[in-house]
């Protein structure tokens, strides 16, 4: 969003001497360098007269500040990061906030204090919002479990008490998976378990795969939605870590189903971006008809004919 020079910034504390710096005899100084996005630009405008060096390289202007500026720029970076989340990536609001905060101070030390206070305030507000979100998400998922109790009891009874298979390491897991699935699928699940375990797989029954010693107290599987027709029944399930009774991390989202013609269980993982979408929409993702956000991939209406 916006122009690159406004939205991006980076800076670092460096003791590497560039050729340009060497010519100016900056051998033994720490330098704070920044690619000046808007927030840093505000501060550079404010403290421009304090620069110890500036130069152009590859079409950009670089400013070199003394080490005392490092905490200031570091605080700004952390503040921008937090405000970006707080204002839901509305970059204009982030910049306005930085402007306001920068106007409240005059010296470097005073600015560090002011921006640190702003940072604490922004973090507190953001954490409160996250806590409210976790509470609402947990309530929603618990409600989904109640709503789909009948479908789960009828078709996926194992889900409430799955067989747990502990594995020593990735090789042990893959060896186990090869007994149930083709080599390619076993490899795929192994990789997925390494990144997002514990995971479940379904064959004749439902198996929860967890590494040996991995605690499962804080891991829950919720049923967020379900649907049943003459040919299939599906339940959208969400694997999540909980903290203090609330969901704090969704590890995976999957569609557990049964083909009523073949009486075969199936389980397909879907992107976690579909965590809050309907079970039927997740099914359309599995059929390749919607994207990772649930938007249709085809312009035309679809006539879905199934058996």
């Amino acid at each position, binding site marked *: 969003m916006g122009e690159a020079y406004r939205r991006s910034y980076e800076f670092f504390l460096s003791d590497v001497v560039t050729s340009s710096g060497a010519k100016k005899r900056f051998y033994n100084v720490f330098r704070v360098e920044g690619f000046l996005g808007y927030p840093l630009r505000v501060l550079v405008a404010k403290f421009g007269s304090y620069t110890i060096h500036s130069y152009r390289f590859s079409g950009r202007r670089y400013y070199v500040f003394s080490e005392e500026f490092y905490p200031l720029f570091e605080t700004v970076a952390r503040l921008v990061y937090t405000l970006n989340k707080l204002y839901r990536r509305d970059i204009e609001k982030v910049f306005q906030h930085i402007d306001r905060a920068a106007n409240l101070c005059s010296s470097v030390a005073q600015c560090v204090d002011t921006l640190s206070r702003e940072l604490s305030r922004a973090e507190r507000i953001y954490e409160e919002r996250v806590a409210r979100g976790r509470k609402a998400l947990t309530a929603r998922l618990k409600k989904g479990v109640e709503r789909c109790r009948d479908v789960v009891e009828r078709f996926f009874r194992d889900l409430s008490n799955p067989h747990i298979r502990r594995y020593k390491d990735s090789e042990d897991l893959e060896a186990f998976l090869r007994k149930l699935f083709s080599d390619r699928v076993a490899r795929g699940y192994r990789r997925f378990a390494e990144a997002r375990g514990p995971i479940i797989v379904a064959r004749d029954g439902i198996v929860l795969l967890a590494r040996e010693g991995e605690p499962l107290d804080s891991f829950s599987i919720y049923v967020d939605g379900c649907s049943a027709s003459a040919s299939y029944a599906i339940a959208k399930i969400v694997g999540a870590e909980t903290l203090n009774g609330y969901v704090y991390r969704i590890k995976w989202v999957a569609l557990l189903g049964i083909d009523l*013609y073949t009486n075969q269980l199936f389980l*397909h993982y879907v992107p976690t971006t579909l965590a809050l979408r309907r079970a039927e929409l997740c099914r359309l993702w599995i059929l*390749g008809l919607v994207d990772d956000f649930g938007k249709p991939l085809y312009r*035309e209406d679809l006539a879905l004919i199934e058996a």
Partner: protein
Amino acid sequence: MGRPRRVYRQGDLVLIEEMVLDLDPAVKEGEALVIASENGNRHRLASPVYTVYGRRYVVVEKPSVLTHPQHPELVVEPGIYRVEFVRDFALNRAVD
């Protein structure tokens, strides 16, 4: 809006109608679509199969029946269909 795009699903097999497709670079693969499923049964459709840049298409010239021993038959209307399979985020590609 024109007519809807037809999508047929039988088990893990998905046929997605192509509204426009240049078949000039197509390489004919066979006279019928035969896909073996995990349990050894086969999906069958008696229509020629082509490969275009690594993708498989089935060209249905008259209404044809897609069969599988464990699923009800599906009558596939004339058209060009891309052969796809259900996909899985964990496996990062289609389950075939």
